[in-house]
Every structure is written in C-alpha cells, then in structure tokens.
C-alpha cells in the first residue's frame, strides 16, 4: 500500500502538471479538492483517465469519482480493491 501511495502522488503531480508540488507536500489524508491541493472538476476527469490507463479501472459516471478522490488514501484503497492491471 505504501508503494501504491507513493506512486499515486508522483502520477497525480505528473498528470495534473503540478510543477510546484512535491510528493512529500501531499499528506495521504489531505483533501484533494476544495481546500488541500485545490483541484477541480477537470482534474477529476484527468484522474479518471489516469486510473483507466495505469490501473485498468473504468468509471461509467464522473460523479462516482467524488467518493474515490477524497484523498490519496481513499484513492489508494479503491485502486487496490478494483485494479485490473
């Protein structure tokens, strides 16, 4: 799980082009949206694309992302349970 969390931080920074953010700046339980990293709905779409590309998880509806993308921690839990690659 620790490896997955570290990998996710790197991937989020890369796919969202967060050039000023370092992996250690993102706490595992920090909110990703609103406060915290301050991501928005377009970032959520990018995260959906990233999950499909790297972990083979396909979401049918963007609203499903809300619960999954609360924090790096909730994302890692979901990916660990549902990944197909």
């Amino acid at each position: 799980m620790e490896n997955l969390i570290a990998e996710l931080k790197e991937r989020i920074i890369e796919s969202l082009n967060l050039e000023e953010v370092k992996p250690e700046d993102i706490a595992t339980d920090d909110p990703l949206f609103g406060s915290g990293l301050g991501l928005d709905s377009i970032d959520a779409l990018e995260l959906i694309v990233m999950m499909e590309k790297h972990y083979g998880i396909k979401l049918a509806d963007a609203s499903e992302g809300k619960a999954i993308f609360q924090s790096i921690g909730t994302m890692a839990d979901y990916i660990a349970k549902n990944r197909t690659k």
Partner: protein
Amino acid sequence: MRKPIVITGCGMIAASKISKIKHLDFEGFPFPVGEVDITNEDLKKQLGIPTNTDVGRTTLLGIYALQQATNQAKISATTPGKKFLISGTTAGEMDLTEKYWQDIENHTDILLRHDCGSCTENIAQHFGFIDQCTTISTACSSGANAILEGAELLEAGEADIVFAGGAEALTKFHLSGFASLMILDREVCRPFAADRAGLNLGEGAAFLAMETEEHAKARGAKILCYFAGGGNACDAFHQTASSPNGEGAYLAMTQALADANISAIDIQYVNAHGTGTINNDESEMAALRRIFGDNLPKVESTKSITGHTTSAAGAIEAVICIKKMKENPDYKYVMDNSFGFGGNDTSIIFSSPLECGRPRPPKNMTASKDACTPTIAARCEITSEDDIAEIKNYLKPAETRRMGKILKSSLLTSLKALKMSGIDVPDAIITATSLGCWENSEKILDDLPAPKPTLFMQSTHNTISSNIAIYLKCHGYNITYTQVDTAFDRAMRKAELLIKSGKANTVLVGLHEENTPKYCELMLKNGKKIKPLQSLSIVLKKK
C-alpha cells in the same frame, strides 16, 4: 435609419434521429449520435464531385446546405452584387487529418488543408460565384456568430449578398474529446428534463442567404423573414462550464433584444442551446428566467432530434426557427441561442415577414470620419518560446499549469499591450489564428480514442480568446477568425467596425500561432518554412 436585413434562402442538412454510429468508421464508440444518414460517396455523387477525390465530410455537408440556400434564394453566377461566404466550423476537415495521421509523413499535403478556412474555401470554390469568404471558430456558437457577422457586413456595405451559417461533420477527434469530458448521454438526450444525463453529438450544415431588404426587393426575391438583431458576449467563467447565473447568455440575449429594438415580451419562441447537460441547461434556464421572468415564451431544444451539431448548431437552429415562424403565424419574433466552449455566447433574433422588421435603433455612428478612425494604443509581439517565461511576472505557476505555449504567449502579449495602453479590461477581444491550439490537437490525435480531457477542452481555436477573457473577466464581444491569410485583416476590420458603431471603445486584437517541431518538419516537406511561435497583441481605441 439602419438598413433592414432579410433572409431570402435557407438550406440545411442534419440528422432526424439519434442512433448508433453507421457511417463514421469508429468501431466500438459506445454513445449514440445524430449522424446524417448518407455516405460520403453518395454525397459526392449528388453534388457532382468525383468519388475518388479526398473531400472532407464537413465540406460536403456545407456544399449540400449552401446549394439549397442558393436555390431557394434564386442566386446564381448571373445575380449581380458582391457575394460573401461566412462559415462557422471548428472540426473543418479533421476527418481527413485523422484518417491519415498515423502515416502523416507520407501524406503531408493533408496538412495544407487542415485549417478551418480551407474547408470554407473549398465550399466557395464549388459554386464559382462567391467573391470572398471568411471562417469563424467560436466552437459551438460558430454558426450563430457567422449569421450575426453576415448582418454586420451587409450593414457596413461590405457585401451585397452574404451566405452565412456553419458546417461540422462528426470526427473521432471531438467524439473522443466529449467522451473524455464525460458529458455524453448513452440514451437520447433530454434537454431541460430533471433526469437529463448529458448530450448527443450530431453533424450537419446550414446556410442562410442574407441581403439588405433593398437589394432583395430590387431583384424581386421572396423575403422569408427579417434578421431582427443579435448579441455576442462572453461568459468569462470557465473553458467548459457555464456560470451558475448564466451571465454570458443573459448579456447575449439582452443585447440581441436591444439590437432588435424589442422587449422580452415580444418573443414567442426560443430555440435554446439546450444541450442536455446538467450544467448548460441549469445555467441557460437561469439566464432565461432573468430575461423573461415568469412569462417564458415557448422554449425548446431540438438537439434530441439532430444531436448537438457543434459549430453548425446555431445555423441549423436558425433554419428551424425560421421554419417554426412560417408554421405558426402568431410567432412574430423568434430567438436562437448558441453557446460555445470558453463562454462564447450568442443570441440572434428573426422577425416574421408580416412584422416587416421594426426599425432597429440607429447605431451610435460617429459623425466625423476622422473621429471614428480607431488608433493603435499599444502593440506587443513575441516570436520566441524563451520569451514566454516572462509570464511568471504576471501569473502564478498554479494559474498557468494547464496552459500550452500559445495560451501563455497570447495571454502574456495581451497583458503587456493592455498595460502599455493603460487599459485594465478591453470592451472586446478578437483573435485571428489558423491552427489555434495545435500542440494540444497533435497530442489528441496521437492519443485517440482516449485523449486527455484537459487537452481537449483547450483544443478549440477560441480557447485563446476565451482564456484571455476568463483571466480579465471580460464579458464583451468575443470572436475568433480562422481564415489563414486574411484572418488578421478581418480581425482588425471587425475592431474598427465595433469602435465605429459605438459597440466598443477599446478592442484587444491578437494574431496567435503555435507550431510543434513535428509540424514544422512536415510542413518543410510541403515547401513551407514556418515559425514555431508568433503572438501579436494590439490594443485599438477610439480616437
């Protein structure tokens, strides 16, 4: 007194139902579409074009619709007067580019016709009697803006007859792009319904033959209806989402009503933008309530029949508005709303021939010829990628993280030119570009059928103008021309017209191009040496 503008011909081709993809070679695309049920080969046969030639479907649909309009208006090579074609398109001949993209090194000639303007030129050439043309790319409001532009050119006396409308064929590029934004409905879309779940993309084309009433009467043409007025405003909120109170839509409708010299109560029918997405319909309804209060006229969206035909939508729905007016003699004024990515919102109004067009309020034309000549207040140009770094002095990295180089260079030169001229927010923003955000388009072509949503939402030509508007919160007139060699001249001419007519005192005009190393190399094979970057921003103001 302003010259009344009339419509003497309408032509349209669109789907009549939403169904599974049949003609576009896009196996496995899971969403239904509004596809015109005819093959390219059959279209070519009907139009007398050799079937073995590569012609984009947008061009074919455009020719088909324009043929109908010229036939109805009885306009041919022998009709006197200067004829101008204004077409709205964003995809252009993207279907050809994506067909050859994997092997583009051996098909570099395709790139010579990739720009939207090339598609308009092909349509014009087919008829042989069109003297001049231009292309407008404001994404899903392109067709409506073309019609508004047509009326303005006729009023300014730049043409005697204008053919204005839009054309757009379905492409893998934008089908995949909209899918990445997760706003496509798996069922037939349900605009304004509580259980709506997104839009269906469609394709088609429509053109109107427009002329002054005087010109139409002199040649004995039948008047179908009047162009009563139009408004163009920018929501300046977000690249893909509309603001909760529908500010851009509200301003566009308000201006259209004022331009037509009527009140909200005079409108009997609104063909709404009504895409069926949660966001659009909520925002548009908020704007409609602000305009009409509790007395809503009949409001409908025809996108559940045609699909959302993107750049053609404003023109197709204008033809539907005109048809509705003919079927319902009590409809005196009808309104056509079209909104695009980046908040490029336009509303146009037609009036019935029985209404004869209420005299429109005179534009605030300055009497002295000298006083109405706009002056250049500032000019800023960059041609090197190294110069873009200066944007750090204006914006935080978090604000530019999504912007490609053209968005940064265009915003930087705009901010510098505005600063030099001492203007915080201009009254209008006008952009000329041939390929728009080409860097993003190239990545999307590489990534098909799964492009990155961030790249797609910043791949339309009008992303440049709306990015500037969003940053400046500029709700004024906002338009993008994409006719390669003449776009900048048109943009400058437009700025002049806006200033002369009193619609703007200050206008920000830009010429922006970006190219990738790959594109520059491919174009060298075509014998064309092109610059990797050019951003020129000019501020014009009333003397």
